[in-house]
């Protein structure tokens, strides 16, 4: 490899990594945290079978899952200003990612809630607990263990999906790379480089998933 190329790669590394640390990671972390709250609420409403709200949840999931993430980003960022709603790129990305992921994760969590044996809930009633207490102390903790691997999947997917935010002018890792490519004309090396940084982030998350799973498994390993 030429000395010039090495120079470009080394020079560009912090220029790509820093937006990764200041934009990609916060964007993922905040969006995913909000998505989890939303998903848990949506899943619990369906699990409890709350009449009208349940239909609303199904509608939300139907819309979100049936349309591309990129289209959702465009509608909110480029479309809504047309009716006077203007949101800055970063909060706009958070909003769209959170609502998008919330719909998918709601289904993951609902499945995990339904996998908790019915007898656990009945036992909770029989010791005097009410529905909310049973959910909080018995069912959700057990469902979390089931949902943890697929939710980790979603988190890892989201790290990479944040690159779509480049399309709405969020200068995250991919956009920073595109700018350097435009200047240096080294697409192969630079896109490989940014790919490696994504891989690095996801490797850390994979390790964390492993640690998390072991913690959550304390009560099943005899």
């Amino acid at each position, binding site marked *: 490899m030429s000395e010039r190329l090495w120079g470009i790669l080394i020079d560009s590394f912090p220029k790509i990594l820093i937006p990764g640390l200041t934009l990609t990671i916060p964007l993922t972390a905040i969006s995913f945290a909000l998505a989890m709250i939303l998903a848990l609420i949506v899943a619990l409403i369906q699990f409890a079978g709350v009449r009208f709200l349940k239909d609303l949840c199904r509608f939300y999931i139907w819309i979100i899952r049936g349309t591309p993430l990129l289209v959702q980003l465009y509608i909110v960022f480029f479309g809504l200003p047309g009716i006077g709603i203007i949101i800055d790129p970063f909060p706009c990305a958070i909003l769209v990612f959170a609502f998008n992921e919330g719909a998918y994760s709601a289904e993951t969590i609902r499945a995990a809630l339904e996998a908790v*044996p019915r*007898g*656990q809930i*009945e*036992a*909770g*009633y*029989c*010791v*005097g*607990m*009410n*529905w909310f*207490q049973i959910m909080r*102390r*018995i069912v959700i*903790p*057990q469902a979390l*263990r089931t949902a943890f691997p697929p939710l980790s999947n979603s988190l890892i997917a989201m790290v990479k999906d944040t690159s779509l935010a480049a399309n709405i002018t969020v200068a995250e890792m991919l956009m920073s790379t595109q700018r350097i490519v435009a200047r240096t004309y080294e697409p192969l090396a630079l896109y490989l480089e940014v790919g490696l940084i994504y891989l690095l982030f996801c490797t850390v998350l994979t390790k964390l998933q492993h640690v998390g799973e072991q913690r959550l498994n*304390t*009560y*099943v*390993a*005899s």
Partner: protein
Amino acid sequence: MSLLEVRNLSKALGGQTVLSDISLSVEPGDCVAILGPSGVGKTTLLRCLNLLERADAGELILDGVSHDLKHIRPKEAAAIRMHTGFVFQEFNLFLNKTVLENITEGLIVARKMSRADAVQRAEEVLRHVGLLDKRDVYPVSLSGGQKQRVGIARALAAKPQILYFDEPTSALDPELTGEVLSVMRDLAQDGMTMVIVTHEISFARDVSNRVITLRDGRVETDTDTQTYFTQKGVTVNGDR
């Protein structure tokens, strides 16, 4: 006055009548065995009494308070369960809680007992069923018999006025039923009011003071244990 009285309880499941017009009463200190062939509705009856199933009709009078079983509200159901304990065939121990927490959970969360008092009470009932040394393990590492003894300890912890047992030994290996039955025998001797759905005929004969049998969703016999087994001329050889 009866501790528990049920009047005209009926229940259908999937369009088929399971229980029709069941009436019975339980006096303080009674140990009532509910017998009958499988599928006759014994478990459904017990579950209706503790509001795990909603009866289609009927009245439940517990400790002098009357409840309309068809229109019971969650709060009312919770209030009834404050007086009862329930032991499941499948144990249903909280899998994510230790043995001790299985017992303290309801006391702290539902009955607003202080943690210290709850732990003390839990240790007391665990000692009673001989499992104090297992207080910090998770249910997964217990044998079936141990699980059920924890189940009994959990039901007992809140000092219920009446304890329901739904086939407490049916999910156990035959060699493990003894330890559970012996705990139940002790409870009966201590004067605990118990309603037991069981297939353990000899246990029913030895421990209960009343026998209720169901047939076709109705009460077939309701009599004291001695009369029941004398009249039947009973063959206890068939059971294990």
